[in-house]
């Protein structure tokens, strides 16, 4: 009987090898596109890249009134005009995700340096046990090293950390209650929750402070009031693995510790919190420097006024903030590329009336997350909009950035292609006078799937030239079926 089982097992093994080949040839790619589209971020990395910047939303988040809406990675390129700087940016990602993505970078790529975003918040319980984690982990399964069929088996049998939102909340609460501070932390509270409960009421009792401030003060403690345990914190090992991978692949690994709003943290939660933030950052600097990484500390680089989110704790910076981080990073990279450094200056607003975007690179226009290689009229990229991401890459600028004489009308022209049925796409011209928004929309001519079509619309400014504030031009499509937009040209006159 044992012999019989052994023979059948061997046959089964051979069949699985065959199935793996069938799967790899005919099914794997469509599965990747469906379940792990993040792979496209890696594929977009040019093979001649010298510096690869890996990050999350801190890289590409901008404020509408930023003239320069480019991500940090692109600003970094200004300092090294002779080098190719590319990026892999995945919002809400962390080192565990970067690790898997970096494993996918082909050997043929000429990358010599990998800059990895090291976000202090990604070490806290809220991020480690985030509700987004299940979906993120799921999207990584097909990318693991190993035969594609085995990875698909793991995906089918849910071999990743599946937890409901409620379970995630319980995990966070458990960590906040049970992860304590030692003497080094110098915090007079038993755990983060106790600390939060001590801070928020102080603000509530202050007569001139609203509830939102008290909530924010508590949130600062929840976000930063933790002590990194190098033995148990999963992020520690993730970054270590990236450094090991870097050594294996011959990359210089740079850990770019992001700026946090220490000014606000001090104001709202006290210097104890700022002290703990600094201790954690120092620990990371020392820990990873010992392991051979170049660590760049941006902690205090960005002033409070340059943080975009005023009511939450994030690393989203306005253009001057992103520039500061890029500048500091660039100055540290001089150690690796002393000859290539150029003392770049920030882009200044200049009155202009004509704008064009072929969506081939991340531009300062904004909403770059819709840019895809799925189809294109010119080049390889276009902006694709559907229910998931209904606003196309479009122009967002302040009225004072266009000449006074050109604030009467706008001509919007682009190429578009309907990719499914039905679409409800509209070209939108949105203008504010500082307090009111006026919105004009013109539907696309065609509604049926087909080839690329030209489109042109002319609309008038709803306010006097002197009153024009923020201007937005984009395509809006809330339908499930997608529409692709390319070569957008906007002329104010």
């Amino acid at each position, binding site marked *: *009987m044992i012999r*019989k*089982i052994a023979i059948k097992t061997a*046959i*089964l093994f051979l*069949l*699985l090898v065959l*199935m793996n080949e*069938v*799967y790899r040839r005919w*099914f794997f790619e469509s*599965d990747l596109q469906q*379940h792990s589209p993040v792979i496209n971020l890696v594929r977009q990395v040019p093979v001649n890249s010298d510096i690869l910047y890996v990050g999350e939303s801190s890289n590409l988040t901008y404020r509408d009134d930023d003239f320069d809406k480019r991500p940090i990675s692109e600003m970094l390129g200004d300092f090294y005009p002779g080098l190719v700087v590319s990026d892999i940016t995945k919002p809400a990602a962390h080192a565990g995700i970067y690790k898997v993505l970096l494993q996918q970078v082909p050997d043929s790529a000429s990358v010599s340096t990998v800059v990895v975003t090291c976000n202090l918040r990604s070490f806290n319980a809220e991020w480690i046990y985030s509700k987004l984690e299940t979906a993120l982990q*799921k999207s990584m399964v097909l990318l693991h090293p190993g035969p594609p*069929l085995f990875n*698909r*088996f*793991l*995906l*089918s*049998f*849910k*071999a990743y950390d*599946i937890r409901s939102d409620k379970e995630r909340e319980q995990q966070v609460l458990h960590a906040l209650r049970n992860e304590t501070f030692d003497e080094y932390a110098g915090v007079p509270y038993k755990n983060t929750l106790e600390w939060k409960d001590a801070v928020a009421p102080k603000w509530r009792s202050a007569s001139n402070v609203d509830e939102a401030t008290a909530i924010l003060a508590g949130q600062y403690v929840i976000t930063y009031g933790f002590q990194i345990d190098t033995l148990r914190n999963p992020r520690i090992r993730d970054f270590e693995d990236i450094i090991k991978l870097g050594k294996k692949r011959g990359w210089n690994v740079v850990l770019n510790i992001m700026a946090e709003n220490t000014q606000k943290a001090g104001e709202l939660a006290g210097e104890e919190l700022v002290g703990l933030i600094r201790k954690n950052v120092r620990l990371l600097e020392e820990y990873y420097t010992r392991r051979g990484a170049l660590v760049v500390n941006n902690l205090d680089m960005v002033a409070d006024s340059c943080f975009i989110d005023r009511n939450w704790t994030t690393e989203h910076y306005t253009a001057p903030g992103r520039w500061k981080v890029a500048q500091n990073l660039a100055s540290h990279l001089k150690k690796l590329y002393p000859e290539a450094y150029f003392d770049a200056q920030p882009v200044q607003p200049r009155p202009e009336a004509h704008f064009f975007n072929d969506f081939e690179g991340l531009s300062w226009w904004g909403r770059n997350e819709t840019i895809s290689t799925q189809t294109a009229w010119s080049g390889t990229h276009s902006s694709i909009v559907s229910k998931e991401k209904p606003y196309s890459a479009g122009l967002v600028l302040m009225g004072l950035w266009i000449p006074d004489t050109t604030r009467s009308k706008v001509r919007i022209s682009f190429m578009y292609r309907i990719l499914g049925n*039905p679409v409800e796409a509209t070209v939108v011209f949105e203008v504010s006078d500082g307090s009111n928004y006026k919105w004009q929309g013109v539907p696309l001519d065609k509604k049926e799937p087909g080839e690329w079509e030209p489109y042109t619309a002319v609309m008038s400014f709803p306010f006097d030239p002197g009153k024009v504030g923020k201007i937005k031009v984009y395509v809006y499509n809330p*339908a*499930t079926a997608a529409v692709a937009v390319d070569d957008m040209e906007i002329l104010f006159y």
Partner: protein
Amino acid sequence: MLFNNIEFVIFLPVVVIFYYLLPGRYRWILLLAASYFFYMSWKAEYIFLIVGSTLVDYFAGLRMERLPDCKSRRPWLLASLFTNLGLLFTFKYFNFAAGNLNQLFDSLHLSLQLPHSDLLLPVGISFYTFQTLSYSIDVYYGKQKAERHLGYFALYVAYFPQLVAGPIERFSRLSPQLKERHVFTYENLVNGLRLILYGLFIKMVIADNLSGFVDKIYAAPEQYGASDILLGILFYSFQIYSDFYGYSVIAIGSALIMGVRIMDNFRTPYLAKNIAEFWQRWHISLSTWFRDYLYLPLGGNRVSSVRWMVNILAVFVVSGFWHGANWTFLIWGGLYGIVYLIEKATGKLVPLPEQVKPFSPTHLLLAGKTFILVTLIWVFFRSQSLPDALEMFRLAFDWGRQPADSLQISSVTWWMMGLFLTTDIALYNTRFDEWVARRNTLIRWSIYSLIIFCVIVFAGVENFPFIYFQF
């Protein structure tokens, strides 16, 4: 731990290996520990409910056996009923009862308000409570000797393959098998694996892929056109069938590897000629439970016609209520009762031949009629509330609307559905392991390869727990 999760793929072989390595007299310890571990992977503290229910029924059984007649045994039976139905009421029906009573108080302008319970429904509570109740009732009537070994009794209550969603086994059938010192046989291993493979296919490839479409339609039917809604209603028929059938087949296969034969729970129900036959083919372990412990004690068909009709309606309504604490389940059960009675009445007026040849035009016509009825009645089962169910029907037959969205169903889904329907028809009145064993080696291995490939490559990737876990 779900049958279609990686944990079970590791758990089952480990249990099976140790099961056969251990001497027979110690196996119950392994199986009981494995069963409790299996259950505790959901919510560890709820294991106390199973242990409590086990202890009460174990001691009630012992006490009842020592007493001479039903009258003197009654307090112990009531203790068992009170414990098991009390657990069910507390965890499953309390909020339903409180909500309806609060509405009643409001309408009577009374200031009384019962609180809402935040207790999570323990997985499989309806299954194991009914399983232990059948034991207590059998001991009460003297049909079953009380079990003296607490460990074996606890294992009967918690045996992991069928713990959380059945089949609901009788003590007289399952317990002797759990005590038997099974030897490892190649035949049991292969048949068990065949069943598990087929169960995984219909759960992971069919049910899990359909559930995405069904969830969309039931979540926002107003977004979709009439044809999509009808498709969603149709898909739910196949989703719930493949989901529950898949679970049952995996349970049967898992037990079979260890030499334990669990009863079949499904026999191609959508080819039933009428509702009576449908319930002989759908969730057989529950239907027979209600027949033996409710319908027959109520008098069965040896009563007046009116009383019989009342009995039929009562059984179906209670069966509906067993599924869930919602008016939709009561209506779902009640509708089956009504259709059953109508079919009985029309059967007398227009008698059909005694034997309808399988797949003859008469059979197909009758099966089509039954399937349409069952599919429409499922709408009440799936909807969150009665108004939602009625809205589904209204929208499903409103052909004049402009839908805001449409279902995008991939060709792979249609191919898989076709494959499932083909196998289901081929398996009419037979089981997959028996059917496949009759094929020659080449066909057998082709079937294995196809199913393995489909399970790995076309399985739905969202985590949809088995539908019947919520009951």
